[in-house]
């Protein structure tokens, strides 16, 4: 589970850390990824794992367009207010996308059914459900890939510079608006893959994004915003915590644990478990 969480949370974490934007519509994009995978399978019989070839470019473009829209409209907004402003704009987008999904696909519960949905891979005595494994592999590989490209590539350096200090990055000749668009697009692309894995694992419907987005916020806060490695570790911690509570009590208590963890971490270490003090 942890890897899947990381897949979904890194885009949120990046947007928050780099641009100080709180993308509450992130869950929407992920659910869109689920729907694309679902329909690709239903209509054309495309395997969900292959269908990310459709959903990722789609969500990349969508994310870039959304961010471009925010860039264009937020020029008069002071930097200190951008957090709340972007929050409201993304809120509006969440409403629109939620309404569109309900209007087009209805509010019914859906699940992606493939041949390997119920199969497991055995590692010695441990049985790993294949969908979880897919999520974990994608999550780990892609989070690490993004993490290293942030560290090593020129664009990654520009992203980090923009996150540190937007004005100075601009003065250094970095097109911060373009960096914003890149970062947002990458986050959306990751969310699309996350959404596909989500669809393999459990049911989904347009409103489930509210449930996911709170969990994702918990992860991002746990790991420290903008800190991808922290986000990854936060995802693993949350995944383990949720699994353990599911084993010892019932599944419905698992989220209570997740949210209580979030509140405790927030009040004790607001910068995240792995953030600088």
């Amino acid at each position, binding site marked *: 589970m942890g890897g899947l969480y990381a897949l979904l949370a890194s885009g949120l974490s990046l947007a*928050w850390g780099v641009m100080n934007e*709180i993308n509450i519509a992130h869950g929407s994009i992920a659910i869109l990824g689920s729907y694309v995978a679902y329909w690709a399978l239903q209509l054309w019989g495309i395997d969900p794992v292959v269908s990310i070839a459709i959903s990722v470019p789609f969500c990349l473009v969508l994310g870039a367009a959304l961010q471009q829209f925010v860039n264009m*409209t937020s020029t008069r*907004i002071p930097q200190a207010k951008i*957090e*709340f*402003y972007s*929050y*409201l*704009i993304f*809120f*509006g*987008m*969440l*409403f*629109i*996308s*939620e*309404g*569109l*999904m*309900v*209007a087009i696909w*209805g*509010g019914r519960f859906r699940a992606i059914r493939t041949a390997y949905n119920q199969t497991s891979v055995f590692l010695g005595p441990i049985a790993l459900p294949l969908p979880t494994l897919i999520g974990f592999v994608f999550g780990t590989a892609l989070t690490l890939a993004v993490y290293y490209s942030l560290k090593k590539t020129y664009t990654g350096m520009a992203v980090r510079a923009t996150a540190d200090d937007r004005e100075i990055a601009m003065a250094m000749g970095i097109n911060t608006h373009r960096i914003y668009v890149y970062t947002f697009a990458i986050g959306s692309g990751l969310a699309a893959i996350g959404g596909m894995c989500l669809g393999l694992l459990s049911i989904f419907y*347009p409103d489930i994004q*509210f449930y996911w987005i*709170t969990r994702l*916020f*918990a992860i991002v*806060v746990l790991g420290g915003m903008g800190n991808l490695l922290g986000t990854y570790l936060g995802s693993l911690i949350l995944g383990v915590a949720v699994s353990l509570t599911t084993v010892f009590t*019932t599944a*419905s*208590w698992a*989220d*209570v644990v997740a*949210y*209580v963890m*979030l*509140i405790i971490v*927030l*009040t004790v270490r*607001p910068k995240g478990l792995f953030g600088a003090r």
Partner: protein
Amino acid sequence: MRLAMWIPIAALFASLPFLGLPKEMLPLLILILMFCALATSWNILAGYAGYISFGQAGFFGIGAYVTAMPLYYQGVNPFLMVPLAGVASASLAFVVGYPCLKLRGAYFAIVTMALAFILQLIVWNVPWTGGGVGLPLPILTASETFIEPIVAYYLAMLGVTLAALIVSQAVENSKFGYGLIAIRESEEVAESAGVPTLKFKILAFMLSTFFAGMVGGIWAPWVAYVQPIGAFPIFVSIYSVVMSVFGGIGTWIGPMLGAIIMTWLQQYLLTNVRIAGIDNIIFGAILILVVITMPNGVIAPVRKLVSSFGAIVRRVGSRKGSSD
């Protein structure tokens, strides 16, 4: 003096159902009043102090269960429990206020959102609240409410809404309100200027949740069914924010305006446009449009219009005066 202006308004609205207003209008009016009260009370903390809460649904749900459970188990008249519903919500706000209100901006928004989810899940998991199935409540009869039940709900909701508006207006023009606005502008400066920031914030949080709890307390017997998803509706949290932003946060009149327009619009869309989700699409588009073009809400241009109109009236008046 300011209080006096509310008496005719209250009297007018309270007499509406007795002056031949069709009974079919009352549910819509109750809904409008409900969101009025929710948005107005949300605004007390968010608009003045700048602490954006996303937990309004949690406190609404507490209120709903505080009236629903005695009604279900003992048949206690829910209207007696409504003030208690508010007190229960405010007490919880007092308890969680200290750790939560240390967090700012988005962190506070997230922690309140999580709080609403925790409350919902606790209710879900505890058996005596009815669990996930919920509690079906007995439908009240006229003998229990003295007048027709729907009128009773209308009057109760009206009372809570007016109280929320009066309190909000009083806060806006009080030392307390100025303290909250100082906190919004800069908490450090407010603190060093001698504003007891923590006390003010907790008080504002309690006020804002007090009304949310009472609204929930009236809502539960009205719909006659409480259930974790229905009684902690995420749309209550969301609409409180959206309606207030639409109307103009930080003013007592803005959230009311937003609630009236948007609730009416939503009901109109739901009944007349037969596409599921259309209300959310329109809401989203309106929200984005308002945020981009009128960051202070629709109340700002309205106020400008009113004040320029007032200036014209005054100018005409003074010209008359000088010519005499």
